């Protein structure tokens, strides 16, 4: 079983600024943005602005991030001609094609990972926050780790 310590950092998101953050600051809290099921079972996250982030980031920016994520997930799950062709082709080849080809969903997930990293580098890490890719949490929540405010100095 893993350790009791806080988890939340996919190693893939390590950049210089993140390393600095980790070394200097400790985690204050974690906020979880839940899924929005009003449109069914497709992957959408709630755009409601969590109160814990009020002092750290602009409401607009946060909502924009979540909305872009929602759009990307909608694109991944879209029922269109592309998905039908993929489905039929897979059926005809007895689904062995999944062993060779990357599915459309996986391609979009890579796009999402890139987007999250970009958002972290540009907006969130400078403000002492960190977004975790929802795929690391089973596409259930967007985990936002709040670090200590750097202006107060490291440590408690």
């Amino acid at each position, binding site marked *: 079983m893993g*350790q009791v*310590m806080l988890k939340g950092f996919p*190693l893939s998101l390590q950049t210089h600024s993140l390393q600095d953050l*980790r070394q200097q600051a400790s985690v204050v*809290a*974690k906020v979880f943005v839940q899924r929005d099921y009003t449109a069914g*079972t497709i992957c959408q996250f709630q755009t409601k602005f969590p109160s814990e982030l009020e002092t750290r980031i602009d409401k607009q920016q946060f909502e924009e991030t979540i909305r872009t994520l929602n759009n990307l997930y909608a694109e991944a799950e879209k029922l269109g001609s592309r998905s039908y062709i993929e489905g*039929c082709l897979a059926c005809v080849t007895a689904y062995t094609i999944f062993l060779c080809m990357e599915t459309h969903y996986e391609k979009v997930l890579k796009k999402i990972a890139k987007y999250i990293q970009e958002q972290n580098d540009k907006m969130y890490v400078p403000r002492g926050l960190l977004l975790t890719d929802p795929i690391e949490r089973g596409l259930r929540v967007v*985990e936002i780790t709040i670090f200590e405010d750097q202006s107060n100095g490291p440590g408690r």
Partner: protein
Amino acid sequence: MKACEYRQIGPQGTAPSPPVSAQNRVKRLRKWNVFPGKNRFYCDGRIMVAGQIGVLPLTLGLIIVTSCLFFIFDCPFLVEHVTRCIPAVGGVLFTFVLVSLLHTSFSDPGILPRASAAEAAYTEKQIGNSGSSSYRPPPRTREVLINRQLVKLKYCFTCKMFRPPRTSHCSLCDNCVEHFDHHCPWVGNCVGRRNYRFFYAFIVSLAFLTVFVFGCVATHLALRKFRSNRSLNKHSFTALELVVCFFSVWSILGLSGFHTYLVASNLTTNEDIKGSWSGNSGVQNTENPYSYNNILMNCCAVLCSPMPPSLIDRRGFLPTDEFPAAAHPEPELPVGSSLSRERLPEALEQCCGHQVVSRPPSSPQSTTSLTSLTSLRSECIYQALPTTPPTQWTMNTVFVLEASLQEALVLPADAFREESSVVVQNVTRTQQVGSQLRAAPGHWLRPRGPGPHRQPAPGGRAELLPVEGRRAELPADFLPNGASRGRLTSSHTGKNVELKFKVNLFWILLDLVLLLDNWRWPGREPTPVARQLPGRPLRHYT
């Protein structure tokens, strides 16, 4: 267990060896090694099957044996007298059936990973269940409006999250599965969002194969009878195939028909059986909110939607510790480290700097009965109490009330292994209540930052910080030996009833004994905390 006392030792005494966690081993573990469900993994996580394989070998055997007999005994005759396409068609169908069956059995059906500790704590906080004295579970449902239908989301106690719509917890696999259809024993796996299309392809192609073989075999026998008019004694294998096909064709055709109906109306077997959308539950005007009200659209949505990814990431490596590695590892008391019985008191003392004593040696009788009960679960329970009276407590005085060495053995069917681990529970630290400093309820603790571990100050202050989002789970820690934490559910759905009974019996006995115990430590007044001590007698285990 012997009642023993340990002196306070300085940190420069024997330094405890770092907790041997998975990451310190030479070979890095992957996530499937610590997967909490009952699934089994092969080929380093590439292939997964449910814990109970069911009758998959029988299914495979029947299909392969019948088809082989068909190819060996019937095809030569039919090629000669009917047409050459028969083995080709048979071969294609047979391959298709096998491949879809293997895909269904060996892939991830859409398992939802369990909530992390931080997430579970956040969920509980959101619902407003912050008191630690009551272990009432969060209210079990959330309601969501989907397509003008009210859908209830239930809270899963095993996975510690609110289940998304159409998700159900499979008790055989001990996982929450998305779009849960059913657990199929023939296939030996759950059928859910990710493998429903394979399952459907399997039963449809199997129906075609069965009908095809049945027809061919019947033709073979009929032709032989007409041509030679001899008895058919020599063709016992053919007769066997006929019998097998005859009995299976009805059930498989029926099943295919049923699932075709489900696909066309975008329902799962689970929903159909429960009658969630057919108004059986008594609510008027319920219709399926997920249906597109168009047969073709529904079929496309179920069978041709983009293949979702596996959420459990079974071949990913376990993440390393979030905090940077210090020059030497921080002594901490995490669950999952394998500290030996002998080192536990040292480690505790180093962490909190208090005197460590083992379980109450108040009166001989109670010691005996307590140890015999507690030894059901763990070898030794230690307590560490502050050496200073309450008047000298400061805001950061921390004391570990109990740390127990938990040696939970795993029942053979479990893939989840829990080694002997240290469970730190019922830790309190002081908090300001009015003008007084009181002990606050349970947090997990970790030592403050990297660096050499300092000698605790004379006032008994220990530099420990609460770990965010981690609460002591008292009821789960009182398990009889042999019960794994992963199998506990605190819902009343009837899962693990037998286990619950055992645990309840244990609780009852423990309560009885504790009522007779007077909880007084020799030579020390009971602290206010001591009275709050695992009021185990009256704690509800839900």
